[in-house]
């Protein structure tokens, strides 16, 4: 019986939260000020093997293609 009540509450919460989302959503877009010819700012990121990867690691060695690809695994 306890389980049934918990499930019911979850469903109710999901139903009431759903329609409110689009009304409340507002977005602030950051300005991308970088342009062709600018020096790319240095960055340090973590690889999928937990190693740090810096832009300067490639200086004088390789050209870098940086693709910021959000939600790649969703197909969206």
């Amino acid at each position, binding site marked *: 019986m306890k389980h049934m009540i918990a499930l019911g509450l979850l469903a109710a919460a999901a139903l009431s939260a759903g329609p409110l989302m689009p009304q409340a959503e507002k977005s602030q877009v950051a300005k991308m000020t970088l342009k062709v010819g*600018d020096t790319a700012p240095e960055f340090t*990121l973590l690889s999928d093997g937990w190693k740090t990867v810096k832009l300067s690691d490639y200086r004088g060695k390789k050209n*870098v293609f940086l693709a910021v690809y959000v939600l790649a695994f969703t197909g969206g």
Partner: protein
Amino acid sequence: MDSPAANFAFAKQIGVTFPLLSDMNHKMLKTYGILKGYDVQNETYEWARRANLVIDKQGIIQFVEADESAVDPNTALTMCTTLHKKDAAK
């Protein structure tokens, strides 16, 4: 934005040959201006915009695009090929 662990699993699944990188503290995304904030019920959630950048060996940006135009990476790839040919000709 995904964790290195999630990227590791995804890299293994699709068999990529290049590193999948995580910007867990959003530092790079902020510096590059590709972080977008969404206000949902008085809370702000940050998400990255899609972007493609090509940076040459000297650290100079040779190509940049964001949002809808960045969904297709082919223009950026063409720039990579052009840079590669230029390097080979030197």
